[in-house]
C-alpha cells in the first residue's frame, strides 16, 4: 500500500539518513535506497535517482568515498563508504536533529 501524502524531507536530512545507513556497511546506491525504503516503512519516499547527486556532493565534501566493486551476483556497482569526516558530520547532524525534534514537539504540545 502506498501513502497518498508525499512527505518531503527537510534539507540536509537526506544526507543524515544516507550517512547513518552507511555506518552499517559500505553500500551501493540501490542498497541505500532499499534500506531507507524498508526502514521507514515507505514513509520516506525519495525519487531514488535523486540519491546520486546527493552522493556526489557528499563524496566531494569528503564524507564518503566511492569505489567500484563486484556485487555478490558478480555485477559491477559503485560502493560508498563513510569516512571519518562523514562520521563526525553525522554526529553533528544527529545532535542538531535531536534538538530540532525536541523543540518541535515542545511547540506542538503547547499549541
Amino acid at each position, binding site marked *: 500500500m502506498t501513502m497518498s501524502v508525499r512527505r518531503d524531507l527537510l534539507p540536509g536530512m537526506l544526507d543524515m539518513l544516507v550517512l547513518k545507513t552507511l555506518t552499517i556497511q559500505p553500500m551501493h*546506491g540501490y542498497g541505500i535506497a532499499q534500506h531507507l525504503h524498508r526502514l521507514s516503512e515507505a514513509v520516506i519516499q525519495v525519487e531514488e535517482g535523486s540519491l546520486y*547527486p546527493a552522493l556526489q*556532493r557528499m563524496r*566531494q565534501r569528503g564524507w564518503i568515498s566511492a569505489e567500484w566493486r563486484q556485487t555478490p551476483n558478480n555485477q*559491477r556497482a*559503485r560502493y560508498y563508504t563513510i569516512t571519518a569526516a562523514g562520521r563526525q558530520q553525522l554526529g553533528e547532524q544527529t545532535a542538531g536533529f535531536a534538538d530540532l525534534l525536541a523543540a518541535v514537539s515542545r511547540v506542538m504540545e503547547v499549541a
Partner: protein
Amino acid sequence: MSAREWLARLFDWSRREQLDRELDDELRFHRGQLERDAVDAGASEREAKHDAARRLGNVTRVHEDARDRWSWPWLDHLFQDMRYAWRGIRRSPGFAIPVILTLGLGIGANAAMFGLIDRMMFRPYPYLRDPGSVHRVYLQSTFRGNRQFWGSTEYTRFLDFKKFSTTYQQIAAFSAGATAIGTGEDAREFRVAGVSASLWDFFNARPALGRFFTAAEDTTPRGADVAVLGYGYWTAQYDRRDVLGQTIRVGNITATIIGVAPEGFTGVSDGEAPAAYIPITTYAGSNANQRDREEYYTRYNWGWLYVMVRLKPGLTAEAAEQDLTSAYIRSWNAELEFDGEGTPVAIAQPRALAGPMKTAAGPNAGLEAKTLLWVSGVAVIVLLIACANVANLMLARLLRRQREIAVRLALGVSRGRLLMQTLTESLMLALLGCAAGLLIAQWGGATLRHLYAQQGAGEGIVTDGRILAVSLVAALLAALVTGVLPAVAATRADLASSLKSGAREGTHQKSRTRVALLVVQGAMSVVLLVGAGLFVQSLDKVKDMRLGFDAEPLLLVNRILRGVQLDSSARVQLSRRLLDAAQALPGVSEAALVSSVPFWSTSSTSLFVSGIDSVSRLGRFTYQTATPDYFTTTGTRILRGRPFASADREGAPRVAVLSESMARILWPSAEALGQCIRVGSDTLPCTEVIGIAEDAVQNSMLDNDKRLRYYLPLDQYFPANGNYMLVRMHGDPSRQVESVRLALQGAMPGESYVTVRPLIEIIDGERRSWQIGATMFAAFGVLALIVAAVGLYGVIAYGVAQRMHEMGVRIALGARSGDVVRLVMGQGMRVAGAGIVIGLGVALLVAPRVQPLLFQQSARDPVTYAAVGVVLLLVALLASALPARRATRADPNAALRAD
C-alpha cells in the same frame, strides 16, 4: 565551500566525462535491480520497466544535478577564451611579440631589482625562527657635534646589554671577517664568523653533522677551540665527508670540527655564507693583538661586533628603545668610570634602538642601499611605461576590430563577456611577458651581480619563490591595466555609428586616450633620462676626481702573523724583508710600507703647534707612516718642498709632509714649510714640515672628508706599524696578484701569510653607488625612451593611416607637402612637448630627494634638463617624420573618387 571541496570539484571537473559515464552505469545498475525486484514480485516485464522508471524518477534531472557537481561554467568559458586568445596571439605575431617583449623588459627589470632589494633588505635569514621579533641593536651618539650611528661595538658593551636590558628574550653577539683557513701556501682567506653560542638558539636549525657549540665553550677570556663548518665550505673542501673530530687551522687557532651547519644556513651574514663559525670569545681571545685579546671583555676600546636581540612578544619599538637606551646609558657610564675620561652622557646622548637585522633597511642605510631603492622605483616606472605602451597597442588592435566588436555587441554578446575575452588575452600576453621577463632577469642577473658585487644577488631568479610571486603579481597587474583600459574604451563605442561608418569616424575619441597614454610615457621617460643624466655626470665626476694617489697601478699587500711571536724589531725586519722582496720582483716599479690604507683605516694622535691653542678643534688630523718611496709609489704629488728620503731615519731630525689642506688650516697666512709641529706630545722635539703634498681621500669620497693628513717616515715614528705594503706595478696589477702573493709568501715565517689585492677594488667599492645609479638609470632611461618612441610612431602612423582620405582631400584642395607635414608632425610635437613639460616638472619636484645620492652634481642642473628635453624632441621628430612623409603621398584622385 571548503578548500577540500573546491579541490574535489576541480578534480572532478578534469574527469567529468568519466564521471558522466560512471553515473550512467550506476543508474543502469539501479534500474536493473528495480526491474528484477518487480519481476520477482510477479510483475510483467512492461510493468517492471514502468515501476522502475517511476521509482527512479526524472533521470535527466539526476544527470543535470550530478553534472552541476562537477561542472564549472566559468572555467569552461575561461578555456574557451584562452583558446580564442591564443589563436589571436598566434595569428598576429607582429602584435604579440613586441607586446611580450615590452612587458618582459618591464617585468624582468622588476624581478631582478626585487631579487636584489629583497635579499638586501627584507628576506629573512634561512632557518631564523620568528624573524619579526629579531632585531639588530643600533647605537647612536653625538661625537664632536655630529649625531651618528656606530657600526660595531665592544664585547664589554654586549655584556652590559645582556646585564642591563630587560626587554629581550634572547641576545647574541656576532662578527665576521676574512680569516685564513689552512696553512702555508695553501692558506686562503675565507669568511669566518665569530658568534656567541646563544646565536644558535635564534634558529630552528639542526646541524647537518655533529652539533653546534654551547655556552660552556663560549666563555671569557677565551672560548674553546672548536669550529662549526658552513655547509658550502664542507661540500667544497671535504666533499661532505665525516669530518667530526678533525682539526682545522682557522686564523690563529687550531680548532676541532664539532659540527656542520645545515644546507643554506648563513647565520646572520648578508652575502657570502661563512666557511666556519667559531665561538665569539675564541675569535676575540685568539686575536693577534695582545691588548685586544686580553682586554676585550673588560674595556671599551675595541669595537668589532654586533648585537642582536629577540624582543619579548608584544613589545612596542618605543618600549624596546627606551629599555635599550637606558641600558646603553648605564653601559656608557660604566665605560666612563672605567676609563676615567670620555664624553659625558649629557653631551653624547647615547641612544640604542632595535632595528631591522639588515643594515640596508636600518636607520643607517648606506648610499648604495638608497640608490638601489631609487633604481627599484625606476624599474616600477619602466613597467608602467611598458604597460602604457601595451595598452596603446591593445587599444589600436581593438580599434582595428571595431566593426567586429560592434557586430558582436549587436548580436547580443554581453559587454562583460567581451571584457573577459580582452582580459584573457592581456592576461596571456602578460604571463608570456612574465616568462620572457624572468629569462631576461636571469640573464641580466649576471650584470647586476657584477655591478652590485654581492654574492647570491641575481642568482636563481627563475627558481626563487619570492621573486616568482612578485613577478606574477606584476604580470597580473599589467594584465589588468593593459586589458581593462582598452576594453572599456573600445566597448563603450557607440554601436550604431560604428556599424554604419566603420573606421573613418568615431575613432577620434579613443585616440585621445592613446595620446594621453603617450604623454604619460613621454613624461616618465623624461624623468628617467634626467635621472640617468645626473647619475652619469656624478659617476664621471667621482671618477675624474683626483684621489690624491694613483689607485690603478697599485697592489695592496697585507701581512698577517700567525703562530709566531715576533717582537717589534723582528716585525720591522720582516716588513723590510717583504719590502726588499717586492722591490726585487719583475713587474714592480716601486713599493712602500704603510701603516694605513685608504677607506680601511686611519690613525690619529694628539698634535701640537705653537700659537694654536687646541689643534684638535680645527678638525681631525690623521697620519700615514710610510717608507721613503711612498710618494713615488702612490703617485701623490709633492707641491712644495721635498718628500722624505732614506736619510730621514731614526735619530735624524724628525720631518713630516703635510697635505695642502692641513697646511692651509694650520697656517692660513704663513708658509708651512719649515714650521714645527709636535706629534704625540708637546714635550717632544720639533717635527719639521719639509713638504706639502696634494690632498688625498681617506675615508670617504664625499666632501665631508676634510683630507687633513700628514705623512711621517715610518723609521722615525712607529717602525713596527708597517703592516701594509703598497706595490706599484708596471702592467695590469690584477693579473699579477697571484705571482706577487707567491713570491712574498716565501718571506713569511711559520704559518704567517700575506694577502694581495688590487687597490682599485677598494676604490671601486666606494664608487659603486654612483656606478649602480648611472648604469641602471641609463639602461632603464634608454629603454623607456625607445618604448616611448615606438609608441609615438605607432600612434601617429595609425592616425595618418586613418586620415589618408582627409589628407588626399586637403592635397586636392591645394595643400602643399609642407602643410601636410606640419599637420602630422605638429601632432607628434604636441605630444612630446606635453610629455617634456610634465616630465621636467616631476623631475624638478623629485630633485631634492635625489640630491644626497649625487656626487658634486646639482639635481636641478639646467643643462641636463635642457639636453633631455632636446633629446626627446628629436626622438619625437624622428618618430613622426616617417608617418608625415607617408601623409604627403596621399592620392588626391583616390580621395575624390571615393566620395
